[in-house]
């Protein structure tokens, strides 16, 4: 960090501090040029785009099933939610009816992903306020979620989980055992972390009142997800526009009051418990039936059929080569991602690739309020505010 003193018209000695683009405290590539009065931030300016990978352009040349790996790299802390959001967008366009079992399987995976996402966010807030042990302890549990992903799809971080039309394979009894064991054991670990951090004097002193935003202002900035709910507005896509059978489950939407770092932390803590409730209900009531829809043009046929049946071979070839045309149309589908409303706006001109794909990335939209939220506060609060907003560079820059 370089510190340059610049005199200003108000005859005050402000200094300019360049925080980023790579800074150990910001967990990602974010640049903020801060005008400082001592330790108080007077003005801030963000520069973003350091890991921009042109996803919206890339998507215009890729067949539908090849866009799923791109979505992995948006919010890479909860890739399965991004994958499912994309599958559901295409399913809406082609009008596929997803069987209940596949919907419940998706809900289980998405809620586990939400827990993994919130584990990272909350432990990182603790790390930034000086508590490293909770982080290392909780990461064992994130690891267990990754083991479940691995058993389901073979991948851990960028999962590419599920397919357009359902899931790629059914849950094996081992996977169900693993999920049940996680649901059973995780609350104890969460309680321990809770006791370690939530009422810790240092943590409370550091986070209460830091980086606060009012509900009204948060709405003007189109906040969504835990950051909006921490400001007291109970908007959750899972309840407002239920998808994938979320209406079948009984869960609460935790909200905060002040919209500060502590409230964001508390909302995420409470959401993890609600997610566990959903996973528990889904795994106990997992319906029997098929794990994918009957859409042969889009869903890869079983391997034994490919070797023995003519149509299956043709469909397999067309899907793998990306030669399946998708109907003309314009859809928007949103899911509740780890950070809020993750939406895909898709225009298809009837070809094999989208004509236009726009991703509504919650991070991109709420990060613009960051400069306003940290102005007038301490530099150390700015670091905590960023980690509590859970700004993920992949989703910010797309």
């Amino acid at each position: 960090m370089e510190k340059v003193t610049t005199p200003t018209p108000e005859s005050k000695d402000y200094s300019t501090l360049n925080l980023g683009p790579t800074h150990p405290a910001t967990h990602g590539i974010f640049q903020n040029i801060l005008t400082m009065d001592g330790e108080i931030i007077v003005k801030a300016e963000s520069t973003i785009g350091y890991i921009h990978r042109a996803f919206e352009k890339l998507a215009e040349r890729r067949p539908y099933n090849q866009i799923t790996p791109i979505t992995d790299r948006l919010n890479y802390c909860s890739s399965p939610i991004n994958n499912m959001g994309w599958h559901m967008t295409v399913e809406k366009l082609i009008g596929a009816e997803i069987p209940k079992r596949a919907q419940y399987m998706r809900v289980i995976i998405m809620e586990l992903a939400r827990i993994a996402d919130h584990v990272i966010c909350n432990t990182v807030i603790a790390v930034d306020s000086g508590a490293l042990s909770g982080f290392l302890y909780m990461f064992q549990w994130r690891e267990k979620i990754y083991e479940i992903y691995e058993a389901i799809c073979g991948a851990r971080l960028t999962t590419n989980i599920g397919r357009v039309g359902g899931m790629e394979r059914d849950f094996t009894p081992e996977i169900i055992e693993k999920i049940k064991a996680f649901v059973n054991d995780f609350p104890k670990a969460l309680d321990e972390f809770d006791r370690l951090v939530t009422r810790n004097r240092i943590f409370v002193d550091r986070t209460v009142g830091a980086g606060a935003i009012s509900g009204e202002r948060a709405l003007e900035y189109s906040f969504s997800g835990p950051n909006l709910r921490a400001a007291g507005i109970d908007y959750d896509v899972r309840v407002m526009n239920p998808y994938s059978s979320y209406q079948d489950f009984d869960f609460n939407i935790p909200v905060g009051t002040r919209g500060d770092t502590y409230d964001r932390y508390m909302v995420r803590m409470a959401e993890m418990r609600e997610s566990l409730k959903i996973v528990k209900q889904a795994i106990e009531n997992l319906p029997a039936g098929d794990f994918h829809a009957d859409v042969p043009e889009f869903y890869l046929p079983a391997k034994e059929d490919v070797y023995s049946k003519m149509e299956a071979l043709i469909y397999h070839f067309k899907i793998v080569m990306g030669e399946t045309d998708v109907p003309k149309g314009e859809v928007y589908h949103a899911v509740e991602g780890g950070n809020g409303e993750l939406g895909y706006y898709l225009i298809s001109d009837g070809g094999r690739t989208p004509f236009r794909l726009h991703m509504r990335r919650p991070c991109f939209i709420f990060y613009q309020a960051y400069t306003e939220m940290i102005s007038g506060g301490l530099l150390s609060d700015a670091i905590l505010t960023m980690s509590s907003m859970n700004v993920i560079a992949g989703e910010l820059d797309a």
Partner: protein
Amino acid sequence: MSELLERIQNKLNNDLNGVVVSSQLDYDFPVFIVEKANIHHVLETLKNDGFKYLTTMCGIHFPDNAGGEFAMMYQLHSLERNERIRVKCFMSEKDLDMPTATDLWASANWMEREAFDFYGFKFKGHPNLKRILNMDEMNYHPLRKEYPLEDASRHDKEDKYFGR
């Protein structure tokens, strides 16, 4: 859905004197197409009608649509009534000046910068209209359809059997 479409269309046409050029239902979204000159009035009227949440906005390029090559799409959400709508306006490639929506929603700031960056819309009245995701030195707008993704000189990518 069609009731919502009808209600919003009547409201806009009554308040703003026949402003809706056309409307349709795209899956679960009522879509309204308006003239560019009226877009700010329409958005303001809708915001006062309860659509207080700007979900997203983006530009679209239709190179074959003569006279309306570019479109700007706005998606609004009324959180109280749980209604979502989409508003679009088309414009010629010769005139990409647009009124800004930053005076209505603070979140429009970066979304408009993104639309400027990728398509070149010029939002009049925007407080800080400069590139956001691409580098400042870039002299073109990369999401326009005239820029193919792959280098045209790459013959190894040609696939004459599948017509891509």
